[in-house]
């Protein structure tokens, strides 16, 4: 059996189909470009599956898929996003993230240097988040069928037993907090897209929230509900919440944290900042009594310094999300329809 000639060269500059074949090419790719950066106890045996020792109690399991374009954007890349997005889905449930699985689908032709940067980002994000990549998989698809790279993950966390996160715990009178400035991730990614390219100080807020949420759960009183406002932004989370709880949420536009740069960039593109994705923020609901305490706990953490109380829960029919506008009027916030396209008109 002849070895594929591509596999012999160690100066390959691009991913080729053979890299996904499971043979020598794959082994070499992973040995040279992936494993050394992600070393940990769970991964090192390189078995078909990772074996974890888990304490008794509840395990949290999540899965996620990442298809961001462009792959690299101000403030991060698809690798950072994959780790943080997965970790955050666990953290907002009140679970301590432990380990991730990572499946890479790479398009033939992706420069190896790009892969290297992304794997570096994965390693760095995992370290920052305090998690390990326990197991993984790599496939290669033909040119034109892969968008450069897509990543699928699964994540495992251990549920804290001192928190109970559930939307049905939310009561009228409860308070809604957001942990920092909104709209930065989505706008930063947009600014890097080809046909919209504009220079911006905006960088993605992508970050692992485990540390902040741990602080919040330990010191912030009784945390009733958390969610990270990713796709569909703040509007999406709040609209979902109103629908799930059957309660009205009233939000004050004046106090929603947003940087002038983000606000103006959204204006420029004709996009509502409330619908823009965030990757390093959390929406938190607590009782009115715990509001100040929860806010203070957030603000003591670097990722929560600009946390703010943005609204309150009411029993009011119909159950809506209502925005008290800067002008002092009102309007309803709804889930955005899907792709918010840049408007000029």
């Amino acid at each position, binding site marked *: 059996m002849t070895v594929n000639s591509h596999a012999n060269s160690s100066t390959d500059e691009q991913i080729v189909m053979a890299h996904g074949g499971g043979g020598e090419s794959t082994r070499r790719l992973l040995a040279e470009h992936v494993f050394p950066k992600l070393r940990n106890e769970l991964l090192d045996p390189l078995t078909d599956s990772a074996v974890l020792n888990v304490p008794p109690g509840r395990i949290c399991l999540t899965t996620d898929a990442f298809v961001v374009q462009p792959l690299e954007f101000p403030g991060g890349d698809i690798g950072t996003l994959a780790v943080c997005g997965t970790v955050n889905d666990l953290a907002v449930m009140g679970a301590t993230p432990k380990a991730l699985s990572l499946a890479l689908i790479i398009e033939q032709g992706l420069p190896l240097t790009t892969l290297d940067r992304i794997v570096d980002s994965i390693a760095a994000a995992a370290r920052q988040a305090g998690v390990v990549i326990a197991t993984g998989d790599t496939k290669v698809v033909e040119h034109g069928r892969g968008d450069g790279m897509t990543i699928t993950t699964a994540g495992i966390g251990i549920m804290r037993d001192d928190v109970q996160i559930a939307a049905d715990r939310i009561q009228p009178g409860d308070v809604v907090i957001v942990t920092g400035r909104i709209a930065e991730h989505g706008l930063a990614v947009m600014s890097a897209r080809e046909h919209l390219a504009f220079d911006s100080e905006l960088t993605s807020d992508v970050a692992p929230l485990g540390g902040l949420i741990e602080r919040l759960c330990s010191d912030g009183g009784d945390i009733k509900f958390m969610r990270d406002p990713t796709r569909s932004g703040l509007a999406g989370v709040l609209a979902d919440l109103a629908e799930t709880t059957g309660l009205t949420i009233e939000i004050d536009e004046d106090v929603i944290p947003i940087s002038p740069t983000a606000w103006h960039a959204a204006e420029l593109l004709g996009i509502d900042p409330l619908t823009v994705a965030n990757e390093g923020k959390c929406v938190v609901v607590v009782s009115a009594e715990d509001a100040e305490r929860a806010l203070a706990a957030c603000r003591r953490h670097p990722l929560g310094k600009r946390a703010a109380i943005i609204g309150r829960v009411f029993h009011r029919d119909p159950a809506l999300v209502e925005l008290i506008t800067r002008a002092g*009027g009102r*309007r309803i916030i709804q889930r955005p329809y899907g792709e918010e396209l840049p408007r000029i008109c």
Partner: protein
Amino acid sequence: MEICGTHTVSLLRSGVKSLLGDVLRLISGPGCPVCVTSQGYIDAACELAARQEVTICTYGDMVRVPGSHGSLEQLKARGADVMVIYCPRDAVHYAAARSDRKVVFLAIGFETTAPATAAAIIEAERMGLENFHVLTAHKLVIPAVSALLSGGDVAIDGLLCPGHVSTVIGADAYRPVVDKWKMPCVIAGFEPLNMLVGIAELVEQAVTGRADVANVYGVAVSPAGNRVAQGLLSRVFAPAPAVWRAIGTIDDSGLELRPQYARFDARAELDVQIGPDHEPPGCMCGQVIQGKVAPSACSLFATACTPVKPVGPCMVSSEGTCAAWYKYGSSITKAQVGPQ
């Protein structure tokens, strides 16, 4: 009546409309460039999009508008090359970079946007491009307003005039409207306070029986407007009859390419026709954009016609009256029903 779709959206989004409540009735007029685009145009755009060698460059709003056989978004999902752009120059530069593609720019919008198309065509001419084309459906505000008022169907006390169109055409452009119909015309911008100042001025005029042109957006609008932009328009375009969705043809209310720029006209160069208008059954978009009925009067509103599954352009376009109502407060905003 607020003529401009952006005023409709801004009034709702800022919450100002909710503050005015029942005291004032705000009727949305024909100022949404997508809403007034004939369905024949949309079908022509889709026909071009289906051609393998064509790249359609368009503003975001057009992408979801349904034609007779689907929208550009749906065609894109089936492989059509549809590109959302922010500036017409993006289309020109793309054409320059890709001589293998036939680039068609969907030129819609009022006088705010038409000069940009004109400048893009001039740039394409200068670059000697043979693969850049424009499918025009630009519309003019004053002729449309005049036609609306001469129809005599809508009882309105004043016109809130579009601030950004007016930066181009100038405040003086409304003088004939005031003189002929004794209709107060106030030009306002889009910040909540500026819109309120404009509405206050309209109310003042209406109540005291005056009719005049008032410009509360002086920071951006001058009496004569932007002469350079007007020059670009008249160099490239000539007024022509235009089909306004469900209103019909209004003389001199649209723009056509002048003969010396005919080679940029997608219709002739790419052999595509703009067919007759036909409204989907049950759709009341035409009446909505004339300000004759409120969205809530349409039996399809929020039932068969929603932003996720729109029937007519008034729901698709972010500026469409129906989309604005649906999104920002149809249940809070008191129904603004037109004349019974």
